[in-house]
């Protein structure tokens, strides 16, 4: 399974631990979609931070995705839900390390 597919699966299942495991130790998520909603952009640096950040967001219903579709080897489109505010988004795996762990993933409005 490609990284982007695993990412979508973890997001759909609200699996914060599984999501964090997809990333390299210093992997980052840069999410620009939430800017403009009631939340700030997400720039989460490091595997542990991704684990903690999404544990919070999933538990309190502030982040989820639906209608996901993997469009190529590195990208997926979905409807991102930021605490009830919907944004059509596209996630891109920008860089992976030699072990296939994500070093940088971006989420932008589509």
């Amino acid at each position: 399974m490609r990284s982007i597919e695993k990412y979508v699966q973890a997001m759909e299942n609200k699996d914060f631990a599984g999501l964090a495991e997809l990333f390299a130790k210093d992997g980052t998520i840069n999410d620009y979609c939430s800017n403009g909603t009631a939340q700030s952009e997400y720039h989460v640096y490091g595997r542990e931070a991704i684990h903690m950040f999404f544990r919070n967001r999933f538990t309190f219903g502030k982040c989820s995705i639906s209608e996901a579709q993997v469009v190529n080897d590195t990208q997926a489109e979905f409807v991102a839900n930021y605490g009830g505010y919907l944004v059509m988004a596209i996630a891109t795996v920008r860089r992976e390390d030699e072990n296939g762990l994500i070093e940088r993933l971006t989420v932008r409005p589509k």
Partner: protein
Amino acid sequence: MGLYAITGGSSGIGAKTVEILKAQGHQVINIDLRNCDITANLATPEGRDEAINKLHEMCPDGLDGMICNAGVSGTCGNLALIISLNYFGTIRLAKGVFDLLEKKHGSCIVTSSNTISQGAGRLDIADILNNVGDEQRVINLVSQLDATNLSVQQSIYVATKYALARYVRRVSSSWAARGVRINAVAPGNVKTAMTANMGEAANHALNALPIPTKYGTESLMEPEEIGEVMAFLVSPNARGINGNVVFVDGGTDALLNSEKVY
């Protein structure tokens, strides 16, 4: 050595702060409901006045510091108590001893909460607290809410703590110009008797507010981690710090709000 007063110094963060200040050689007057130097119920106007009068009797030459720490969490389920104790109990005490602090160019600390940055507060209630300041009117307003609902309890708790932090920001410049500093401390979730006995659902929610410095341990902040910051902030060593809301939460706020740098 200094003369300090603290509210809610009989347990939790307050008790640790008392311990730290005493270990530094200071004299500390504890205002609480039990095991204290001044017994007063700060949830009532009479109790607040009693505490202020006693402090004036006991400290005719002034106070080096006032730590307004008494408060209850949202889970107490008593919305009126949250409003009266957390907000009005704190503001009244801070204002009521201002003249004592002025005499010694002292400092005031208010206990806020790191939840103020997590978007769960009723900011309309916070606005009314800060801008109207009518205790009975706010109590009437919150009495119409469902006090058994955990989200409602939390939203009112956060509103009081948000209003306290904003109060500190608003008055800090004029207070400082008169020689008195005022700051807020915003602790993360702290180990207390109450958090030790929480149910599964509450623990689940607590652990979803991760504390980066405790990563992987599922543990909360220690009361002394907060107390040590309070002892520093109230001391003359922190004379350059005024009007700040200092998050003492092991990095939870930075984790959840990395883009808020100011």
